[in-house]
């Protein structure tokens, strides 16, 4: 049983996973491994960012122990968090490394949940001199990329049960105030403002309209659950935790 992070290069998979372990937690506590240990492993002080995940391996498995506070009480989950390099989505890489690609497919198929991390597209990025727009794909490319995600989930991983679709780097999106969004979407085990359906609805209508037909295609499968949409940013703890709380609902108790 595992949770796998997938997404293209530089979308923030490793940063998201690392930040989840940050001790400033609210409803998701990573009990093991400690943040300091993970940070030493993944963070490069000289670059001021996480190290890019090397494509010499297709999957990086790490055991983690998480405690999630749910309405029916807190739940301790022992799971494997699988980080994957974004590099593997290039078809040239897939052709030269067929064995590694199969390892990845195997891991993805056996995962209990998928965190699909997508970046924002160029048109919605907030104007700022420090942001290089060339780092981001255009809306059209972004939509095309979703067609390929649909293909991937329909043909290569048809039995995945839970997909949490995270629009990451939400802090860069024009008109998004993380605090306000977090207030809208915040989770609280007893008196949250929105339930999962309403959260999904809100994020879907605000950010994922351009790919609604692709998401409908994913939802049409006979078995498995619908895709749930999230926005995430390492700068906001509430938003960062949401996909894990959602997946945590479905993961088995530690036995």
């Amino acid at each position, binding site marked *: 049983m595992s949770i796998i992070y997938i997404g293209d290069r530089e979308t923030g998979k490793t940063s998201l996973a690392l930040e989840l372990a940050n001790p400033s937690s609210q409803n998701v506590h990573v009990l093991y491994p400690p943040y300091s240990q993970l940070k030493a492993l993944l963070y490069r002080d000289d670059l001021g960012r996480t190290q890019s995940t090397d494509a010499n391996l297709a999957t990086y498995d790490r055991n983690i122990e998480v405690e999630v506070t749910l309405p*029916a009480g807190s739940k301790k989950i022992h799971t494997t968090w699988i980080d994957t390099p974004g590099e593997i989505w290039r078809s040239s890489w897939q052709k030269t490394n067929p064995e590694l690609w199969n390892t990845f497919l195997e891991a993805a198929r056996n995962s209990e949940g998928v965190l699909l991390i997508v970046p924002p597209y160029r048109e919605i990025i907030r104007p700022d001199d420090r942001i290089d727009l060339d780092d981001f794909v255009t809306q059209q490319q972004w939509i095309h990329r979703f067609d390929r995600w649909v293909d991937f989930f329909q043909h290569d991983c048809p039995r995945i049960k839970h997909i949490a679709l995270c629009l990451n780097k939400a802090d860069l999106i024009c008109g998004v105030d993380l605090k306000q969004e977090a207030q809208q979407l915040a989770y609280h085990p007893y008196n949250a403002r929105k339930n999962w359906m309403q959260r999904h609805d809100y994020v*879907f209508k605000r950010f994922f309209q351009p790919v609604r037909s692709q998401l409908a295609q994913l939802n049409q499968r006979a078995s498995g659950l*619908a895709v749930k949409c999230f926005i995430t940013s390492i700068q906001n703890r509430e938003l960062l935790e949401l996909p894990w709380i*959602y997946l945590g*609902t479905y993961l088995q108790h530690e036995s």
Partner: protein
Amino acid sequence: MGNICIIGPRASGKTTYLAGLSYFNDYAGSRSSYKVQPLNDDACQLVEMAENTILQGSSIAPTRLGDRIHTVDDLPYYSFQIEIRKGLFKPPNILQLNVRDYPGEVFEKILQTNHEDTIYTEFIDECLMADVEGCLLLFTEWESSKDAFYSKLLSRFIAMMDERDRLKNYRLAVAMSKCERGEIWPGRLDPETDLFGVYLKKTLKTLKGKLPPQNLRFFAMSTFGVLGRYDPRPNRIDDYGSGGRASVLRDSPRWNPYNLIEPLDWLHRS
């Protein structure tokens, strides 16, 4: 001891039904009044599942072969004590209910498999074992295109009952689930005539032709229910693009299921 199976096609709401049943553990609605007490770990987890998913606006994950379930022994096994109160001066009907929750694909695959030792046959064997009193069969799709498929499935199932000598001593409660849907909600009062007799004619004929009438009864059930007595809008929202297969509870404070206990009460009545 009442061993009962719950079977039905995929996404017919089997696990959701059980979760709803155990969440309303002390129910006193207009039609029925009952108490449910979980007796094992699996059953206790059902209540948690209801609180964490249904009440939070998400749906219960499908029970599927392969995930953790490889043989019959891996299936969730729920054990409850249920006390059904009949009225002020009548003694309550107390039953211990042991249920296995089958993945829907098992039921759908019985049509395709003719091999003796497949996992599907193993599941059906377990379901028709001598100590199983009967089974609650859930259907969800009422569109007439499904009628032929359901009827074939049931002929096969009845043939399997016959092979195992259970044809005359096995109770079958056939229920249309998710009856909160507007098109079929009015048919709930007489499901045999107004649901099965109208939408699933072939299925009805297959069942009535082969099974003794005292062992067959039709029910209409709704785990989510409608918004209120004078507000018959369904208390559910369908997930976008899922074609109505995946849906969530719309208004959790107004959650009021319909007819959950009646099929069990009938199945267990000797």
